[in-house]
């Protein structure tokens, strides 16, 4: 379903204006699903749950109703450390100037096979 996005709506508060902690809801978990054997777990979304076990059950019900997975990881969102987008350039800069890490850096004569 989708609403008519032109529906007049009252103004939204600024992001994060209502502190979640004030109402003490269930914590947020990020959900990772292994689609089938041989593949990595991939992030699929998030879920709220009171504890780890409930998070696994909720993740199963919400993200794998049609055999989308053979294994699920859940992790408390506040336990994830992430790089900051604002330091994108300096953080990833060390990989940009080392072109000799790529196989195309090396010129090999065409007649050399299997290389």
């Amino acid at each position, binding site marked *: 379903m989708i609403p008519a996005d032109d529906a007049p709506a009252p103004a939204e508060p600024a992001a994060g204006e209502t502190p979640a902690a004030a109402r003490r809801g269930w914590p947020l978990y990020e959900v990772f699903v292994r689609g089938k054997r041989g593949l990595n777990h991939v992030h699929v979304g998030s879920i709220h749950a009171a504890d780890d076990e409930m998070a696994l059950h909720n993740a199963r*019900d919400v993200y794998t109703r049609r055999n989308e997975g053979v294994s699920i990881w859940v992790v408390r969102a506040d336990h994830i450390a992430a790089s900051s987008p604002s330091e994108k350039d300096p953080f990833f800069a060390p990989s940009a100037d080392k072109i000799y890490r790529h196989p195309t850096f090396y010129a090999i004569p065409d007649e050399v096979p299997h290389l």
Partner: protein
Amino acid sequence: MDTSTPEDAELQAQFDATVAADQRIEPRDWMPEGYRRTLIRQIAQHAHSEIMGMQPEGNWILRAPSLRRKAILLAKVQDEAGHGLYLYAAAETLGVDRDDLTQRLVDSRQKYSSIFNYPALSYADIGVIGWFVDGAAICNQVPLCRCSYGPYARAMIRICKEESFHQRQGYELLLAMVNGTDAQREMVQESVNRWWWPSLMMFGPPDGDSPNSQQSMAWGIKRHTNDELRQRFVDMTVPQAEVLGVTLPDPQLRWNPDRGAHDYGEPDWAEFKAVLAGSGPANAQRLAHRRRAHENGAWVREAARVHAEKQAARKEVAA
């Protein structure tokens, strides 16, 4: 938008370049406040619509005519709950809290799709809701899979994959009915008559009366105008109606070879506005039901939280 400092101007330029290059904006990227507010409003309304959309159909689960139909309807209504949760999760990446959004819904401070303020009066409505309402939803949602905001686009991809089942089960139900008795065929036609116009209204007001559309399109949130999507739905539905042998209740509906599209009549926009404003046939009932369910669940949410805290404390002592 505030581009008062060189830094802001640079962030704005980066954002604009990302959108222009058809790349995705991700949660921790800088974004204009208006973009964030628009997305929160739209995704929350979309999530609320999924959750409220469980009601007209959930009401028929116990009255489904066979175990097969009951299982299908149960699975569909469960999907709607799942779709609501994907979307609340996407909204939360913008810095809002799901509990807060739910509170806004039950306090009537946020909207949901006007279509769910119409009652499902017969079992044929279950078929027509799948065919029209989910069909219209697909028209609306497929372009949103390419929305500029990553988490919303990804939720939509997941939803669209599941929505196809919703539409097909509805159409198949109607096929079974039109191949049944005269009374069943009449039920289908009567249901089509009631749902056609409200379904056309699902695409929102006409383009000339849709002030937010242009900005949403500039931001890459929206890809097509309301009228374009409405036209697509009409053109898609007409041949489906022919196969069922039902008449769409619009005397102006006809193929226009010049446009390569169907001409059709104008929905009653006064009715649309009245339903949005809260005076549709089932607004009060739907909202009261949602509020009751939310309040009745409060002790369960609280008990689970306290139990989890107690277990965690015990584990700590034991360690």
